[in-house]
């Protein structure tokens, strides 16, 4: 059970980073930490005690396998996470070009 709580701990570590950090790249890293915590959670809920990797062995069909569905979901989510992180980094590089800084306090044209 402790592992599930640690997933949540990791999620809040990421959330703390997003809220308190001032550097754009550090915010992106914190978002990635949150992302990883959700993936870890998915990997954990598919685990079954004494289960083996779900590769079918025709000789021994009665083995206990872990649940393969969350693993496929995590793979899909990782692909999506790759795309979002890449886009976020591209926007950060462009922002650095325009403002010459990574400090979020100086990037405040939009308000009201």
């Amino acid at each position, binding site marked *: 059970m402790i592992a599930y709580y640690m997933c949540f701990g990791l999620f809040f570590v990421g959330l703390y980073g997003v809220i308190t950090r001032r550097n754009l790249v550090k915010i992106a890293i914190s978002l990635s930490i949150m992302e990883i915590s959700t993936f870890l959670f998915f990997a954990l809920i598919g685990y079954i005690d004494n289960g083996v990797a779900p590769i079918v062995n025709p000789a021994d069909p009665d083995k206990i396998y872990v649940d393969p569905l969350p693993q496929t979901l995590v793979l899909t989510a990782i692909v999506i996470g790759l795309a979002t992180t890449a886009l976020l980094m*591209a926007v950060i*590089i462009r922002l650095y*070009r325009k403002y010459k800084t990574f400090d979020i306090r100086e990037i405040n044209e939009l308000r009201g």
Partner: protein
Amino acid sequence: MKGMTIIVKKTAQLIAGMIFMYGIYVIVHGHLTPGGGFAGGVIMAGSLILVILSHGTDFFSLVKEEMGTTIVESAATICVILIATAGFLFGTKVFFNNFLPKGNVGDLVSAGVLPLYNIFVGIEVAASVFIIFLSLIIFKEESPK
């Protein structure tokens, strides 16, 4: 972007091909072992990125490379969609139908259309990860005005 020293260049030349072949191996055995299109594609893109990082390029060839890779990526995605829609024509006539013969469990040529999906997804992922790398370098190299 400048290249690195001769030692790095030679080492990269030696291992880049092997990494590429390993990526192909992971893609082709995707329906038998863990791995598949995405994992193999990322390995293949890794070998390409290694070559560019060690040897260095100039800005214009990067842009040219990016255009060509985009077309490869889009074509591979279109192939995946075509295989999926081919399910409308054969068998039970539904989208994403596995219409090829399944073969024996454990053979390299088995599992119907799954290896085809793996191959095209692998090409697509390799191209798109490579494009991400290229675009980030292009953003960095663009001379600030």
